[in-house]
């Protein structure tokens, strides 16, 4: 059992300098850190980023939102955000119970990269970008290109996620998040669907984003469907949604449900999510 080192910097530069020279495991809320190691000793060196003030908090400016990496889900739930973020708030309330929402962070949910992460579909539908910093510079990556697979992300070992950015949606756009689990509370999802819809003055779909989680290693945007329904009335758009729109999903059979069940549930939830997001 190797000795574990623990570092808790208060400035971003300190954290980046550390990451540039040593393989640290970045820790924030830690809600899946120890529970993911039951029966195994903690043998990694831990970089606790929760005391870096710059990484915490939410700023809203002209419809654009910057969510600091270590913002907790409880902080997100109580923040004033545009209506299109209602789905993200609904997803935040599904992240474990209150104790987990008090500790778990937005960027931690993304970096942990669980296929069943509640935060990912809602942030994907919002078109979130992940801001990464390292000793050699900064970059922004679309969330869809950041989460690469189960427990895999595009973050290099020397990089730290500092924020998640949401670009503005039209005024009046609405977001929803629907989660199917085996009971109401505290469950790992069978299927999750997040949708954001903006309508034009005639009540037709001007912009639509739909993401499905827990039906593939990484939550997927349904880009074909999103493009096809633009210009349609919501009712005709919903009537036209079929399994052909879900071909990018690759659900698995597991203890929570069969692949066929997940596919069927996803189709129903996609229709419901778009209907709710298109209802002012």
């Amino acid at each position: 059992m190797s000795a574990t080192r623990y570092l808790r910097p208060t400035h971003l530069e300190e954290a980046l300098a550390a990451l540039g020279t040593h393989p640290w495991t970045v820790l924030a809320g830690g809600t899946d850190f120890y529970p993911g190691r039951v029966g195994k000793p903690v043998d990694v060196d831990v970089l606790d980023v929760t005391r870096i003030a710059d990484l915490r908090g939410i700023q809203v400016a002209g419809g654009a939102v910057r969510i600091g990496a270590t913002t907790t889900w409880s902080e997100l739930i109580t923040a004033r955000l545009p209506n299109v973020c209602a789905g993200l708030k609904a997803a935040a309330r599904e992240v474990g119970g209150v104790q987990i929402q008090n500790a778990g962070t937005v960027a931690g949910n993304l970096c942990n990269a669980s296929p069943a992460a509640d935060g990912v579909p809602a942030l994907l539908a919002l078109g979130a970008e992940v801001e990464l910093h390292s000793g050699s510079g900064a970059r922004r990556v679309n969330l869809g290109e950041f989460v690469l697979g189960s427990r895999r992300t595009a973050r290099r070992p020397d990089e730290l996620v500092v924020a998640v950015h949401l670009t503005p949606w039209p005024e009046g756009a609405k977001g929803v998040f629907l989660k199917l689990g085996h009971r109401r509370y505290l469950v790992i999802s069978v299927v999750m669907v997040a949708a954001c819809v903006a309508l034009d003055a005639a009540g037709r779909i001007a912009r639509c984003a739909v993401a499905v989680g827990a039906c593939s290693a990484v939550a997927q945007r349904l880009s074909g469907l999103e493009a096809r329904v633009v210009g349609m009335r919501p009712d005709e758009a919903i009537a036209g949604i079929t399994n052909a729109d879900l071909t990018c999903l690759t659900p698995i059979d597991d203890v929570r449900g069969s692949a066929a069940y997940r596919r069927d549930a996803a189709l129903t939830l996609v229709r419901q999510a778009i209907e709710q997001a298109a209802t002012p």
Partner: protein
Amino acid sequence: MTTESISLTVNGQPRRMDIDPRTLLVQLIRDHLGLTGTHVGCDTAQCGACTVHVDGRAVKSCSILALQADGTEVTTIEGLATGDELHPMQQAFRDCHGLQCGYCTPGMVMSAIELLKHNPQPSEQQIREGLEGNICRCTGYQNIVKAVQQAAGA
């Protein structure tokens, strides 16, 4: 073994010690400080028996490292009563018999206090939602909900 020093306030008392960095907050509370009122049920951040308050917010002490609580104020179930006078939430659990085996009770009480702090007059549904992170395998939650309702009315 490398150690790190930690200073925190537990139930109003300043504490300073040197610990293995891998020590969980619940291990510090139970094994180092001997405050065994905080229980470990599942060890995987599901059951909520280990719930304590860190700077006034309920967290599961089995899922955070003790060092993450450095510099904070921690309150455990032992820190609620004033002398022989129970905290209103403890009294309500006693009056309503909001327990059977009692294993989940410390965590339930800590979560229920957080719930009323943010929502002093919760509906029955809001109480059930607010306690979703705490699992009780005995009571069916009926008397737990009644206890929180009594404490909210007190």
